[in-house]
């Protein structure tokens, strides 16, 4: 009851100078607001990163074939048949075999090799350029894809080198705008494939790490890996003739994905994979091991650094706000010297005066904190509004498509719940810290002199 009354009376004193109190509060308001807003941006970014990484599979280890830098020594010539050079690089069947035999802790799905090609697919009058993914049955689960209709590529398909195809949602839409694709046939490089299934729509994952570019699963066509490999010239050679030369590339697998049994063994297993490949590839930089879990750790580390930087910025802004408050409270004490004398004459002890002024300072900073918190809560809406204005009125389509534009338009701030009490707590502490000195100055005034003050 007493505390409530004290706070009520503190507000009465603050309301005596509304404008001044309001302006003083602004420092804290924006301090708290910026803390919450910036943490929300950081949190949003980190959640996005986490989702992307998790969509790659936290228990997965992804090995990608990478074209080595154009080093003539590295690109060994071999008989391409027509006198041109064939650049062989990347993951081989031997790699697959050795990984399959030596890597511990793998799940039932184990290893999923993938060969990708960008080719056109046709069906009656419709043509669409797609990523043809040669894969095995486990590909579906390992990439967190789901079937919308029909079924996925089966082990049987692979065994039979069957001409079956599963369309991603986007491909299905462009090749079969009106009719049901299941059971119909499509053409890829002159061969016909029977559509056995369609996968559900899925948002594209962003680029992760150096070698794993963003994947838009919606333009895929999945066929059995064995079928794809038989499609390739002489089994292995990718028949694309590189511009300006006769050289061709030979890649067996674009990617092998390993799934381990639990998160705990991911990093240990990844180490074994790296060592194994280092031995078999003999320092050739033609592959890259991407461990989503490590990326997750890196993202977390990045967020921690981000939080520390933001914390310092927030600390400085609250410090500035606090100094503003102290300044005003010192002026207030001088201005209210007589009031202090009156209170002392009526029986207030020094500590009552200290309490009064600290309560007033905290009421000021705490109110600022509350307002800042309310503003902080509106961050996602402010952002949504800002993005809308940018898109509608300011950025043209090319600017919106630029890296900066994409980065900003892609931001989805997520309010970190813990940041609310923390930011408010900081505002109160700021009031306390910067209120002590003025309050003590007030309490130390001599009652008689304070009363004489005009």
């Amino acid at each position, binding site marked *: 009851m007493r505390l409530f009354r004290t706070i009520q009376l503190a507000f009465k004193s603050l309301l005596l100078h509304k404008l001044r109190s309001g302006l003083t509060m602004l420092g804290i308001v924006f301090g708290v607001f910026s803390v919450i807003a910036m943490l929300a941006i950081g949190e949003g970014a980190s959640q996005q990163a986490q989702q992307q990484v998790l969509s790659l599979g936290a228990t997965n280890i992804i090995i990608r074939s990478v074209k080595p830098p154009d080093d003539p020594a590295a690109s060994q010539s071999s008989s391409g048949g027509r006198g041109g050079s064939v650049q062989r690089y990347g993951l081989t069947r031997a790699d697959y075999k050795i990984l399959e035999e030596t890597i511990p802790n793998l799940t039932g799905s184990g290893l999923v090799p993938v060969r990708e090609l960008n080719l056109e697919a046709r069906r009656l009058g419709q043509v669409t350029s797609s990523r043809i993914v040669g894969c095995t049955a486990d590909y579906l689960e390992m990439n967190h894809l789901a079937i919308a209709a029909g079924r996925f590529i089966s082990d049987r398909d692979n065994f039979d080198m069957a001409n079956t195809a599963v369309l991603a949602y986007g491909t299905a839409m462009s090749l079969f705008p009106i009719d049901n694709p299941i059971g119909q046939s499509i053409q890829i490089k002159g061969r016909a494939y029977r559509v056995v299934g369609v996968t559900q729509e899925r948002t594209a994952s962003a680029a992760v790490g150096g070698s794993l570019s963003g994947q838009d699963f919606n333009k895929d066509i999945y066929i059995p890996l064995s079928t794809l490999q038989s499609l390739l010239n002489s089994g292995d050679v990718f028949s694309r003739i590189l511009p300006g030369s006769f050289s061709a590339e030979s890649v067996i697998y674009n990617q092998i994905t390993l799934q381990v049994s639990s998160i705990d063994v991911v990093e240990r297993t990844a180490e074994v994979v790296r060592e194994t490949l280092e031995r078999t590839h003999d320092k050739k930089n033609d592959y890259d091991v991407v461990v989503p879990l490590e990326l997750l750790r890196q993202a977390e580390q990045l967020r921690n650094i981000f939080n520390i930087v933001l914390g310092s910025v927030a600390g400085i802004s609250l410090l500035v706000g606090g100094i503003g408050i102290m300044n005003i409270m010192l002026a207030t004490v001088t201005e209210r010297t007589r*009031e202090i004398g009156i209170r002392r004459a009526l029986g207030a002890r020094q500590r009552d005066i200290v309490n009064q002024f600290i309560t007033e300072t905290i009421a000021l900073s705490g109110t600022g904190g509350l307002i800042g918190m309310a503003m902080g809560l509106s961050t996602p809406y402010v952002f949504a509004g800002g993005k809308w204005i940018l898109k509608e009125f300011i950025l043209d389509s090319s600017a919106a498509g630029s890296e900066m534009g994409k980065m900003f338009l892609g931001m989805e701030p997520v309010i970190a719940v813990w940041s609310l009490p923390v930011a408010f707590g900081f505002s109160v502490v700021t009031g306390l810290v910067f209120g002590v000195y003025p309050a003590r100055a007030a309490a130390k005034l001599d009652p008689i002199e304070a*009363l004489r003050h005009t």
Partner: protein
Amino acid sequence: MKYAARLINLRKHYQLGDHEVQALRGVSLDIPEGDFLAIMGSSGSGKSTMLNLLGALDRPTSGQYLLRDRDVSEMTDDELSEARNSLIGFIFQSFNLIQQYTVLENIEVPLLYRSGTTSISAADRQKCLLLADRVGLTERLDHRPFQLSGGQQQRVAIARALVNDPTIILADEPTGNLDSATGEEIMRILTELHDEGRTIIMVTHEADVAANANRQIIMKDGVIASEGILPGNKRVRA
């Protein structure tokens, strides 16, 4: 006889650089309960200094001040505050109300600093309302000081001085800032309080204000120059 306050050879010196101002140079005075004392004297004679000591706002340089048998010269700062709160009611020349508070809140201020009690009870509130009624401010409870006339402000101050039932009411030129008609009103209230048996000590320059008291002392150069009943005194105690 019971004394509300006793001053025994009280001295108050101020050190101004290497120069010492002797504001009070040995004052002895007994103030029995129920007394109404007027302190007069020329400017600089030590009246306010004496009243500040009586009000426990300050400690004497030497000598003794017994307030209800307690020696004020020995008190700590907190004890002085407590004594001011419970034993003394102040009325100032310039009213000294708290500007941001209403009439009622101003009357309640001494209750905020009581020792032991943590909140203002319904009985306390009732008492404040009675005091406001007594000084004729029932209609003005929600007004702020700047909305009141000088006389009304001084009446708020009187109600405030009474709220903790003090032993002594101290008034430093209570009518100094008021016109004579309003001043007389204030003096009528003080006289009433005295008739109820309260002890009142008042500093004044004006003889006809001092004449309301039943005893007058005249200060000169930090000592009591003369004491007694002035000629033309309106109220001679039986």
